[in-house]
C-alpha cells in the first residue's frame, strides 16, 4: 500500500515562529503536493513539486515556501507563522506518469497558530 506520512497530526505554534511541516512518501512518486483545507473552502493547493528540487506555486502560495531535497520528502515551510495560517494541511503524492492514477494523501496536520 502507498503510504504518505505527515510528521505531526497536531501542532501549536506561536505567531512569528518558523514552522516546518514534513511529508514522506514511500512509493517513489515524482509528484508531491501541499494542500490547505478550511471549512467551506475545500482543499486549496499551496505548492507542488514534480521532481527533486523542482517546485511550482499553487493557488495560495503567499506566506509559504517548500523544499524537496530528496524524492521521498516534501516540506512545507511557514516563514513567519500568522494566525490566518491556522488550518488543516494535507500532503499528497502521485506518480509522474500520465493516466488516471489518483493522488494519495497523508492524514493531515492540524496547525494552530496562537
Amino acid at each position: 500500500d502507498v503510504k504518505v506520512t505527515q510528521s505531526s497530526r497536531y501542532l501549536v505554534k506561536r505567531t512569528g515562529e518558523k514552522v516546518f511541516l514534513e511529508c514522506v512518501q514511500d512509493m517513489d512518486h515524482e509528484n508531491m503536493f501541499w494542500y490547505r483545507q478550511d471549512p467551506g473552502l475545500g482543499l486549496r493547493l499551496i505548492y507542488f513539486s514534480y521532481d527533486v528540487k523542482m517546485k511550482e506555486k499553487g493557488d495560495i502560495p503567499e506566506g509559504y515556501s517548500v523544499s524537496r531535497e530528496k524524492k521521498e520528502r516534501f516540506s512545507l515551510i511557514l516563514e513567519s507563522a500568522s494566525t490566518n495560517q491556522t488550518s488543516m494541511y494535507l500532503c499528497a503524492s502521485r506518480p509522474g506518469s500520465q493516466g488516471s492514477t489518483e493522488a494519495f494523501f497523508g492524514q493531515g496536520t492540524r496547525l494552530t497558530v496562537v
Partner: protein
Amino acid sequence: AQTVTQSQPEMSVQEAETVTLSCTYDTSESDYYLFWYKQPPSRQMILVIRQEAYKQQNATENRFSVNFQKAAKSFSLKISDSQLGDAAMYFCAYRSVWGGSNYKLTFGKGTLLTVNP
C-alpha cells in the same frame, strides 16, 4: 482555470437508502479526469471512484456509481444501500490530462454526508 462546484454543503440519508451528491465543473478542455474522494472523521482522504472523460460509460465501484454528463459538465455520485461507514465529507475533484496543470487536482468545497440509523 478550471473550477469545481458542489452545491450541497450537507446531505443526509437513512441507512440502506440511496443518496446522490452533485458536482459540476467548468473547463474548456476536452480530455480530463474526474474523481470523488471521501474524507471520514479520521481525516484520511480515500479515493471512491474515478472517471476518464473520454469514456462514455459511467464508472461503478460496488455501491458507488457516477452519472457523468460531459456536455452538461456534471459528475454526480450515487451511493446505494448507504451504510453508517459512508458518513464522511465527500469531495469532487478535477485533473487535466495535458500541460502543466496536469499535475494538480482542483477540488470542490465538499459535501458533508450524514447517515442516519
